[in-house]
């Protein structure tokens, strides 16, 4: 356990060093936040029908997803993937630790360190500095806030399990590359990163709710804004955890299958 925590700490430290990247990230994430907010302003102004999610709820949803973009599992650990491609991964394989867990702790660092660096300034801007129409709202209530925190924890685990799948499929040099290009599109769309999931067609709602991706962006954001009642946290957190377990098992299975056939690239 100590080894995993130590690795997590080291990766975390290292990722915190990238200050310029964090600054650039904050700028682009703010910019895209504005673009998305403006699109939805236009959308809500041009419709008189009652939408399944309020205007304020949508804007808050967008700022939350922009601030926490780093949590979205759209890629693997680039350092690890380079290690796999060059064969440096050989060293990881001769350590007395479980490889899946080792890579999972890397994923935790990858998902938390840059997100923390970027989320705080974006929250400050979106909550406090923006004029009313563009601004992010405060949590609906204390219990909503609590539910948000819990579901964020679920989102983190889910995200790390998916990130680790990205890492593991890199072991299939060619096919893995295809998956790492294809999967992000699905994840970005079905997590609610482009259009909030409540605005998807009615017939898709049932499916989206039970897919793992909604647990990453959509569900936490709607707990925050009160769109989902805090009392639902138990069942929705349960879905997040079930998916996390399934994805971890899948990752472990893929990894153990590949470990038997492993070929270390280059000399």
């Amino acid at each position, binding site marked *: 356990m100590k*080894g995993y925590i130590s690795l997590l700490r080291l990766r975390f430290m*290292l990722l915190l*060093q990238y200050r310029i990247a964090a600054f650039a990230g904050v700028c682009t994430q703010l910019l895209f936040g504005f673009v998305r907010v403006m699109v939805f302003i236009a959308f809500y102004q041009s419709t008189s029908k009652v939408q399944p999610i309020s205007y304020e709820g949508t804007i808050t949803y967008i700022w939350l997803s922009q601030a926490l973009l780093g949590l979205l599992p759209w890629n693997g650990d680039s350092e690890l993937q380079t290690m796999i491609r060059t064969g440096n991964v050989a*060293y990881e394989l*001769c350590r*007395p*630790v479980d490889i899946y867990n080792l890579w999972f702790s890397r994923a935790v660092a990858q998902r938390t360190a840059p997100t923390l660096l970027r989320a705080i300034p974006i929250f400050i801007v979106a909550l406090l500095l923006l004029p009313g129409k563009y601004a992010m709202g405060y949590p609906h209530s204390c219990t909503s806030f609590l539910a948000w925190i819990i579901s964020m924890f679920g989102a983190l685990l889910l995200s790390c399990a998916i990130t680790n799948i990205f890492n593991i499929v890199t072991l299939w040099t060619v096919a893995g590359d295809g998956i790492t290009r294809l999967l992000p599109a699905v994840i970005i769309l079905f997590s609610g990163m482009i259009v909030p999931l409540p605005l998807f067609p009615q017939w898709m709602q049932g499916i989206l709710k039970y897919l793992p991706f909604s647990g990453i962006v959509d569900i936490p954001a709607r707990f925050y804004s009160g769109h989902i009642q805090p009392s639902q946290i138990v069942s929705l957190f349960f879905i997040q955890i079930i998916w996390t377990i399934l994805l971890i098992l899948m990752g472990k299975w893929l990894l153990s299958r590949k470990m038997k056939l492993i070929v270390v690239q280059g000399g």
Partner: protein
Amino acid sequence: MSQIIVENLMKTFKVAKRKPGLWNAVQGLVHREYNTVHALEGISFKLEEGELVGYIGPNGAGKSTTVKILSGILVPDSGRCEVMGKVPWKQRIDHVKNIGVVFGQRSQLWWDLPVEDSFQLLRDIYNIPHQNYKSTRDELIEILNISTLLDVPVRQLSLGQRMKCELAASLLHTPPLLFLDEPTIGLDAVSKLAVRDFIKKINKERGVTVILTTHDMDDIEALCSRVVVIGRGKILSDGTIEELRNHVSKERKLTVHMDMPIDNFSIPGARVVELEGQQISLAFNPEYISPAILISNLYEKYPVKDLFIENTPIEEIIAKLYGELRI
């Protein structure tokens, strides 16, 4: 019981054939042909505790494959392999606690972080008790003389400095076994000597069993009591350097400097390898003609200025061995 037992180890790799050109690439989408590369074809050897064995062979002979199987990274197709009573790829986690590994062409240190951080990570990964860690670390730092390097980010180290740190990193958990895969590759003469001294020391003083693969024959001559030569996945020779020499050729080299250029040089019992002005290289077999007689014959016949006898350089022995086996 032997520390390492390897019996009839086999490993093949399937490599997709990729012919150059667009048309062949398109064909490859539908139908792919595979080549089977036999990396190891029945390797057997045993190692006792405290041995320092050189494992040599040309590129692609299967050296690294063997080391990777021994370190639990690769799974062989068939054969038996036990390291300290454990099967590396089946009991990987228990097994790797017993071994230290250095791959000369790779790095286990974190590029952007000071060396000390990598050491501490290894301490936690191997679960080394603080007291042991401190004493081992201090000892390694002293032998390798790297105390000034510890707070430097790895990317700022020279290759020689880095290799010393890699060696220290691989021994922090005091493994009884050390696998070194080309540890002196790319190092300058001074660093090479430092690395060699270190290997010798930990083998002698700590009794660490060392398997060393290298292309540098000076490494072998300076360090190894035993040499295993592998080629095309098979073991070609296994024994001391002397045995290897005798196995390939018993000839010695005699280099003679004359006072003046000689035409039509010949001497019974020795073969002229090279004749260049006043310098002549001869090869002779001491079993047929004693060096003393050969030299006195030379002095009688020619105006000898200076001469010296040497063993055939190990490079030549190896080259000859590879050549004989057409590999």
